[in-house]
């Protein structure tokens, strides 16, 4: 299959290792991965802040960037951004009176998948250790980000794949379905409420005794990781793509105060 990677803006700029890990998993399964260079962002930051006109411009950029390419599916390492493609992009284009872009956005969204969705529903992966060679010795807990869980309906997909990684010891967090407090611009526009939310999330993570907290959205992990770092906690945050990409030959190295280096690359 020819897969177009939608890296998402935050992964592109802040966590390239997550995109690298996603590529590694897809190539391991024999897919050809391409990266349309014109891509930028899903438009959520503008849309959810109420800047709809700007958001429409970003939607148009996304649609045009991907329409230049031939591919079978789009894969992104984010539940939130993928949910936004189908849920918000057509609405934003319609609102701007551009029904052609609205239709293209809906068509592209129908071919876009969050990583765990693609692996299970499209590729039929049910065991990360056996089918992806995933190996990560360590104690892990997981945060299920709200948009993936509620808007996209990912259910237990990410958690199930994580739990089948060889060597991994899993503990579920109390209040798994509770928001970490990120919420995009909410995190600084309502900084105190957001701060109280992430403080509770971090406390629950620490109660698991895990040394790594993983998840499917780099934005939530940046929020959680930033709060852990501020607290001086030794717990590290890692995207689940990095754990799935980790193998016995090229294990994921978790080190340093907040920086994590993917092995191999």
């Amino acid at each position, binding site marked *: 299959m020819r897969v177009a990677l939608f890296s998402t803006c935050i992964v592109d700029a802040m966590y390239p290792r997550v995109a690298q890990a996603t590529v590694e998993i897809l190539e391991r399964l024999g897919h050809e991965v391409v990266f349309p260079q014109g891509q930028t962002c899903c438009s959520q930051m503008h849309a*959810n802040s109420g800047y709809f006109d700007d958001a429409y411009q970003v939607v148009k950029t996304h649609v045009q960037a991907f329409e230049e390419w031939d591919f079978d599916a789009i894969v992104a390492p984010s539940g939130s951004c993928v949910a936004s493609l189908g849920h918000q992009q057509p609405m934003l284009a319609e609102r701007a009176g551009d029904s052609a872009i609205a239709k293209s956005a809906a068509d592209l969204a129908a071919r876009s998948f969050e990583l765990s969705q693609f692996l299970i529903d499209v590729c039929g992966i049910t065991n990360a250790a056996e089918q992806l060679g995933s190996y990560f010795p360590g104690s892990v807990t997981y945060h299920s980000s709200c948009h993936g869980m509620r808007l996209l309906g990912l259910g237990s997909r990410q958690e199930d794949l994580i739990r*089948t990684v060889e060597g991994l010891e899993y503990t579920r967090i109390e209040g798994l379905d509770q928001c970490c407090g990120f919420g995009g611009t909410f995190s600084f526009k309502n900084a105190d409420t*957001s701060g109280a939310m992430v403080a509770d999330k971090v406390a629950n993570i620490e109660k698991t005794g895990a040394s790594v907290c993983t998840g499917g959205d780099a934005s939530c992990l940046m929020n959680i990781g930033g709060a852990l770092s501020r607290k001086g906690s030794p717990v590290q945050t890692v995207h689940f793509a990095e754990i799935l990409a980790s193998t016995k030959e090229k294990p994921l190295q978790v080190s340093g105060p907040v*920086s994590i280096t993917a092995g191999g690359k």
Partner: protein
Amino acid sequence: MSTTALGMPTVRHGVGNIFEFEPFPEYAEKELKNEQLRANLGFATHKIRDKRAAVINELPDWQDLRTAGSMIKQKVMANLDTYLQEFEKNFTAKGGHVHWARDANEANEIALRLIREQGVTEVNKIKSMATAETGLNEFLEEHGISAIETDLAEEIVQLGEDRPSHILVPAIHRNRTEIRDIFRKKIEGVNPDLSDDPAELAEASRFRLREKFLTNKVAISGVNFGIAETGTMTIVESEGNGRMCLTLPETLITFMGIEKILPTTQDYEVFLQLLPRSSTGERMNPYTSMWTGVTPGDGPQNLHVILMDNGRTAALADQVGRQALHCIRCSACMNVCPVYERAGGHAYGSTYPGPIGAILTPQLGGIEEQYNSTLPFASSLCGACYEACPVKINIPDVLVHLRGKAVDLEKAQGEFEGGKKDRHIQMDAMMFGAKTLFTSGKLLSLATRGLPASRLITGRSHKISKLPGIVGGWTDYRDIPEPPKSSFRNDWKKERGEAPKRVGGERVDLQALIAANQGKLAEAHAKAEAANPIVKEAK
């Protein structure tokens, strides 16, 4: 006959307690410092949350019920004019009197006139959101009439000279000890050694209210639903104090928002399943009262209803926002809301707190009024409210829709009246900068070449701990990790170069693959259970 076009009526917003008088973030910051409040709220919301989840999980058709509830409400809103007139006709035919109020002030004036006609200075009240919205108690007080709240929690709030902070459990911010202190101070003739035992507290309240029920001749109520086909009014409640108010007085005056209509008695069946489970987490509420007109020799003989608009028609005019009028005031959204749980109900200013308040208040009172425009931003858009809503109000979608209105308004006005201008300028600049980058992959590629420079800021700690301006809110609570040496797009270009954009050929049939893999999620889940069973959640 010739017709004259009168034009569209102007949108008329409501008045009363539907305003946020301080920006939400500032109000919330103060409330967050109150440790007792946070502890009370956390305990109470989690308890109701768990109870609700348990009774909902036992219904196999819960999602169908939600859909039915949503569709009935959509039908009501689409034909509201017809149903209201049908209701008026039937309520009147059975001996009741119907009054129409354009806003809260008119509703209060009508109630005052009706009370004065009875020559009394004290009236009993059943818990009602509509009268809280109009500020009826304070209005009557100014005109020499005492309104006695007979719902236990409303009584606590009234005696404590406090404001409700939750629509179902108005005293959720108070714990037992605080309630005991209020009762000791405010209930005449109460045992001075009153303990904080719930049974003793309830007895103290009963002692005070029993006399009021037996002597006051006028009562005021709200209503849960008004049924158009019969003119029947209904109230569901837990304590039975409402039943006393509805049956014992000679005069009953009911405040009813115009959106509370149901077309038929059969529709009521859906809501009687949805409401108790969503609000108190009970399968059925203890007291369900229905009254249809006047019955000679039994119950109130002087029966009134005040049909109140107060901004509801304005909300109805908004195609996306109007679903807020579907609300049945169950409070499930606030019980599951992570923002409400921490900031508390008072931070929302209005009678309607929590997620529903954040979309209802700006629509009823006007988003341009006071600080109502800050309410739609008081959410992380986590979606827990939508998931819990028994009538499927898509609160996150309406929040985002209203954020758009707030930004458009700001652009039109230059600044919000009384708002902090500098914050909006920073926000506008940030959004403009991001838009510029996000509308060009090439520009983004150039910009991310500057990433190594940002490592100068992070220095030896490999993190950013203090940022200026509005984004300083982020670093008040969290660090930012050291940015990478290079962006993914630039690495990719360097390592992989350009692949051909067009390769032609048949596209893989994704839907066929998905259909073939239908059982894979269950399989993955079973394998996960075998590999790493979830024995129990960490406590």
